[in-house]
């Protein structure tokens, strides 16, 4: 037991002193998340979805509708109050404008009319923009109609939309991706040690092979947990991700996912003749996997002909499970189905790895 602990401890020390490995495993995923997070953190699609509810049947309502439709920044949807507010709540609108049924009548009597503007304040910037545009439009139309200043009162309502920002999608995806990469590269140390005949030297001592393997796996798991902590810490602090799932569940899935990908990593380590070849093989899997799985982009964004690829990639399921647990995203497959796929993948990889791994 002492041997196993000492071996594990020093494997960890080795890793902690390897600056290149530290960067790629701990810093790089965070950098990736921050870059993607800031690039797509707020949905800055070209147009801003705005809902319009027209209760006024008079000319004022018609004119405002026309002017708002002409604003290019707005992607205007006209609907019932109930639908539009629901859409706002889900994050599908940045703002919903409600023109009251007494609007035309009030302005005819030169009285102040109250326009309701519901804003998604979780997207402060676009909310502010939407509000000022709406205000200008309504006041402009009102001056045309009444030739008088200021018969407009705007009543704003703040809504914290439970909507899904890209970062909510991306953060669990990057966590899944990092875990997968950690596992895929999991055999590099062993393969280097095999190449330098260190594994052979260890074989000449009384410690057993499973201790060497186990110490490697334990160190990888520990790194995965540190990586998870850092990634989630940054996601919480910088992007205010709302984690809905329980921490033990997240940690459990991370451990499970790491083990599954370590099994694949060991299999590749058994097939590769040396460390250089192993890294090349891993990258050949890693890059397509990054973009073809649903880890970074929703599957819906993917061209139809590529979807079957995503369906067979284990990373798709790991990302999907983490997303469901962390931010309650709409599942692609259920947690149980995803776990089943991962388990199958893990057992198959582990068996093949057991057959293919060489010690010299």
């Amino acid at each position, binding site marked *: 037991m002492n041997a196993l602990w000492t071996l594990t401890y020093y494997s960890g020390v080795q890793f902690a002193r390897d600056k290149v490995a530290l960067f790629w495993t701990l810093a790089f995923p965070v950098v990736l998340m921050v870059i993607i997070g800031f690039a797509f953190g707020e949905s800055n699609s070209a147009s801003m979805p705005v809902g319009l509810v027209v209760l006024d049947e008079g000319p004022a309502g018609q004119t405002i509708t026309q002017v708002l439709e002409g604003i290019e920044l707005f992607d205007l949807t006209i609907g019932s109050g109930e639908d539009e507010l629901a859409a706002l709540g889900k994050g599908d609108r940045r703002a919903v404008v409600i023109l009251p049924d007494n609007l035309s009548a009030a302005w005819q009597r030169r009285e102040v009319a109250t326009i309701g503007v519901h804003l998604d304040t979780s997207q402060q910037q676009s909310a502010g923009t939407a509000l000022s545009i709406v205000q200008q439009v309504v006041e402009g139309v009102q001056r045309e109609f009444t030739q008088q200043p200021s018969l407009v009162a705007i009543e704003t309502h703040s809504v914290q939309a439970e909507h899904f920002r890209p970062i909510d999608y991306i953060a669990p995806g990057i966590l899944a991706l990092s875990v997968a990469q950690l596992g895929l590269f999991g055999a590099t140390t062993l393969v280097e040690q095999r190449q330098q*005949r260190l594994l052979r030297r260890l074989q000449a001592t009384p410690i057993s092979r499973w201790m060497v393997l186990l110490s490697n796996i334990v160190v990888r798991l520990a790194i995965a947990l540190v990586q998870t902590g850092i990634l989630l810490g940054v996601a919480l602090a910088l992007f205010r991700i709302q984690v809905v799932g329980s921490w033990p569940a997240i940690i459990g899935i991370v451990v499970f996912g790491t083990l599954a990908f370590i099994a694949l990593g060991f299999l590749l380590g058994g097939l590769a003749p040396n460390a250089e070849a192993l890294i090349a093989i891993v990258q050949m899997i890693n890059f397509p996997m990054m973009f073809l799985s649903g880890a970074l982009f929703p599957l819906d964004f993917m061209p139809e002909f590529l979807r079957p690829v995503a369906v067979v990639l284990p990373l798709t399921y790991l990302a999907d499970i983490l997303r469901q647990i962390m931010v309650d995203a709409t599942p692609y497959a259920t947690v149980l189905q995803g776990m089943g796929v991962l388990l199958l993948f893990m057992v198959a990889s582990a068996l093949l790895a057991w057959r293919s791994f060489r010690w010299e």
Partner: protein
Amino acid sequence: MAAIVVENLQKSYGDLRAVDGLSFTVEEGEVFGLLGPNGAGKTTTVEILIGLRERDSGRVEVTGFDPAQEGDAVKAQIGVQLQQTELFPLLSVEEILHLFASFYHDSKPVAELLELVGLQERRKAKYRHLSGGQKQRLSLALTLINDPELVFLDEPTTGLDPQARRALWNIVEQMRAQGKTVLLTTHYMEEAEVLCRRVAVIDHGKILALGAPRDLVDQYVPERAIELPLADHSAERRLESLPAVTHVDITEGFAAIHTTDLRESLTAILEKSEDFALSLDDLRIQRGTLEDVFLQLTGRTIRE
């Protein structure tokens, strides 16, 4: 009891017979050398003895155990140095010693081992910053970590400069002084002559000769060479006519007079020294070396 018994050991890789019927016994407390060129089967033999490789046939006993059956028992009792092994690049000398110490039931104090191999000053240095000689010294320290009675050293000085090689020889001599049994492989004749009580000369997986280095030289290269300074070639013919002289080589102002009977030839040279105008100031007598033994046995030099 013999520390190692090998009887008719065989091992093939495909068509290549790496070890082809080796038999030898290493007594307790002796330094025994397996001497031969690269590819002679030395490393394969060592790997079979320490339980890293399966043999095809033959009998092997190491500290009373069969390494193929009781590998763990053998591994716990021996110290091993393998050739061309890199250790953990980012761990320090002392960390590596502590790590290996944890693999054994009992281990020697790390400080003692550091002193033995002269690495106290470098104990905090990372492995990757060590010189070749320091790496080898650390690797020798590791062979002693469980205080074994039997130590295997596979090509311990290959690739080292002469000074580093001498430092390693000193460590092996200390092992011998402590009464440890050492089996070492080498293709350096001088190393075998300096360190080994007995050597087995191996080529193509077979033992060509086995015995104490001096005995092997006497047996296979009985000639001696008398070396004298000689200014010109004029005396060559006359030297060759002396009794028991087989031939004379003249190079760079020196004559090497090869003789089958040292006493007879030397007496003649002393008698004729004035007639022949020979200078006796730098007279030397050279014995053959293991190098000559190998040449004699195989018709080639060991580094070919």
